[in-house]
C-alpha cells in the first residue's frame, strides 16, 4: 500500500504528457536513421507491401532478404520515392528519415534523392565519360569550380575503390568499363553528392565474384559514414556484410533483428526455413 503513489502517478498521466510521449519517443530514438512505420504499398489495385515496420540505425548495413516477389525492391523504392515515376502506384504509412516523413507532401524530392542514393541490379552508366558520370550529380546539386569538381570526382572514385583502375580513363565512355567497374562507377556517382543513405538493390547479382568481393569491401569501408540498405539473394553476402537483417515474405516483414541472431537463432519458423534453404 505504501508504494501506491508511484503506479498512480505513472498511470495517470496528464493529457499533455500523453501527447508528448510518442513524439519524445521518436526524438529520443536517435538510434534510427530511418524508421519505417506501417508502410503499405499498392501497384494500382495490387497491394505489394503490408504494414512494414523497420528501424535502421545510422552507420549500419541492413540486409533485406526474402524470396523473389516478396516486396524487397518495392520496400526500398519507397525510401527515395522513385516509385512516383509511375502514375498509379502509391505508398501509405511513413518512412522517417531523421524523423521527417519522406512520404509527406512538402518534401523536396530532389534533395531527398541527393540524401538517399540508389544502386541498381544492373549497372546504370549514363551515356557519358567516366568523369562526367561521377560529376553528374555534382553538376545538378552544386556549383563547383573545375578544381573542386575534379577533386570531388577523384574522392568519390576513391571511395568506390575505382580510382586506381580508371585514373587514366576518365575521358573514356563509362560504358567501356567492365561490368564490375561500371557498378562501382555507379557507386562513385551516388557517393559524389555526399548522400546519407545508400540503397542497393541486388548490386552484385549481375557481376562476377571478384568484382562482388570488391563491392562488398567497399560497402564495409563506407559503413562508417553512410547508412546502407542492401537487398540480396545471397545469404552468405547478407551474413558477411550486414549488421541487421530483415526477412520479408509476402510483402510483410516477418523478422527483423541483428544479423547474427537472424542467422543463428531466428524467432520465426519461416525465417529459419528460408535461411536453411528449405524454400525460396
Amino acid at each position: 500500500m505504501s508504494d501506491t503513489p508511484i503506479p498512480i502517478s505513472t498511470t495517470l498521466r496528464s493529457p499533455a504528457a500523453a501527447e508528448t510521449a510518442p513524439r519524445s519517443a521518436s526524438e529520443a530514438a536517435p538510434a534510427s536513421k530511418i524508421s519505417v512505420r506501417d508502410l503499405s504499398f499498392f501497384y494500382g489495385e495490387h497491394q505489394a507491401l503490408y504494414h512494414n515496420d523497420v528501424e535502421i540505425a545510422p552507420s549500419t548495413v541492413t540486409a533485406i532478404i526474402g524470396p523473389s516477389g516478396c516486396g524487397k525492391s518495392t520496400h526500398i523504392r519507397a525510401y527515395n520515392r522513385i516509385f512516383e515515376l509511375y502514375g498509379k502506384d502509391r505508398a501509405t504509412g511513413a518512412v522517417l528519415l531523421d524523423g521527417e516523413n519522406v512520404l509527406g507532401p512538402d518534401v523536396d524530392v530532389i534533395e531527398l534523392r541527393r540524401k538517399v542514393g540508389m544502386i541498381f541490379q544492373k549497372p546504370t552508366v549514363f551515356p557519358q565519360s567516366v568523369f562526367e558520370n561521377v560529376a553528374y550529380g555534382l553538376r545538378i546539386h552544386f556549383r563547383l569550380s573545375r578544381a573542386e569538381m575534379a577533386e570531388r570526382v577523384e574522392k568519390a572514385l576513391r571511395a568506390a575503390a575505382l580510382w586506381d583502375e580508371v585514373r587514366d580513363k576518365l575521358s573514356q565512355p563509362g560504358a567501356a568499363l567492365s561490368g564490375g567497374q561500371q557498378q562501382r562507377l555507379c557507386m562513385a556517382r551516388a557517393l559524389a553528392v555526399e548522400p546519407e543513405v545508400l540503397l542497393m538493390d541486388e548490386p552484385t547479382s549481375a557481376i562476377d565474384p571478384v568484382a562482388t568481393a570488391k563491392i562488398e569491401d567497399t560497402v564495409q569501408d563506407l559503413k562508417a559514414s553512410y547508412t546502407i540498405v542492401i537487398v540480396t539473394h545471397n545469404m552468405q553476402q547478407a551474413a558477411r556484410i550486414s549488421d541487421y537483417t530483415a526477412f520479408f515474405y509476402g510483402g510483410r516483414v516477418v523478422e527483423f533483428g541483428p544479423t547474427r541472431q537472424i542467422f543463428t537463432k531466428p524467432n520465426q519458423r519461416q525465417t529459419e526455413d528460408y535461411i536453411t534453404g528449405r524454400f525460396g
Partner: protein
Amino acid sequence: MNGSVAGQAAGATGEFAGRQRRQRLLDLGFKSLTQASATLVLACMAGILLSLLVRSWPSLQRFGAGFLWSSQWDPVTEEFGAAAAIFGSIVSTVIAMALAVPLGLAIALFLVELAPRPVSRLVSYAIELLAAIPSIIYGMWGLFVFAPFMGSHIEPALQSWLGFLPLFRGPPIGIGMLSAGVILALMILPFVSAVMRDVFGMVPAVLKEAAYGMGSTTWEVTRKVTVPFAVQGLVGAGFLGLARAIGETMAVTFVIGNSQSISASLFAPANTIPSTLANEFTEATTPLYLSALVELGLVLFLITFLIQLAAQFWLGRLARGRR
C-alpha cells in the same frame, strides 16, 4: 517375345529416321523459298536500275555529266538539264527536315516523358492516323487551303520581318518552294515523331530511374541521359524521314508551282524531280525528252538509294550499340 521387342525398336528408329528425313526436306524447301524471295528482291532492284539506264541512254549520251549541273530545261529546243529539279528537291527537303526534325523531337519527348498515359495514347493514335493519310489529300488540302493561307498570312509576315534576306523577297503568292517544304514537313512529321517516340521508348527504364534517383529534374534526365542515349536512333529516324520527303510526289506537285528555275527566293515557284516526272511524262513527245525524264528518275533512284544506305548504316550501328 524378344524378337517383337527388337522389331518394335527397329520400327521406332525407322520412323525416327523417316521423320528426320522429312524435316530435312522441309528445311531445304523453306531455305530455297526464302532464298528465292531474297533473290527476287535483288533481281527487281537490278532490273529497275537496268531499265532506267537503258531508257535514259539517249539522254546520257547527248548531255553527259552536264545533265547534272545545267539548269536548262527546254522541251522546245530539246535542251535538258536536271539542276533545277535537283536543287528544288534538295531545298524543299531541307526545309521539311528543318521543320519536322525539331518538332518531331519535341512531340516524341512529350509523348514519352511528359504526357500522362491516356493523353500519350490518344495522341499516338492520332499521329498514326495522320501518317496513314494518302499524300494526294495533303496535296489537295495544300492547294485549296494551305497555299492561300501561306500567301495571305505567313509569307507577308515573313517578308515584313525578314525581307532583308533574299530568301524572303518576291511576290508572296503562296505557291512555291516554301509552301512545298512546309507541306512536306507536315507530311513526314507524323512518321518522324512516331519513329522517334519508339526510339525514346527503347531507353531502359532503369537508366531513367537511376537519373531521377540522383535527384534530376525531367529536363536534366532528358538532356543528359535520354537524348544522348537515343541519339543514333534519332538520326536514323531523321534519315527515314528524309528518304520519304525526297521521293514525295503528289503533295509537292500541287503547291510548288512547277517551274524549272533556280531562284534565291523561297516564295518563287520551283520544281522537284518527282513532280517534274509526274507533270511532264504525258507531254513528253520526243524520244530525247522522254529519255531525259527517265534520266531524272535515275538520279532520284540513286539519291534515295544513297540515303537508304546511310540510314541502314546508322540503324545497324544502333542495333550493335545496344548489344
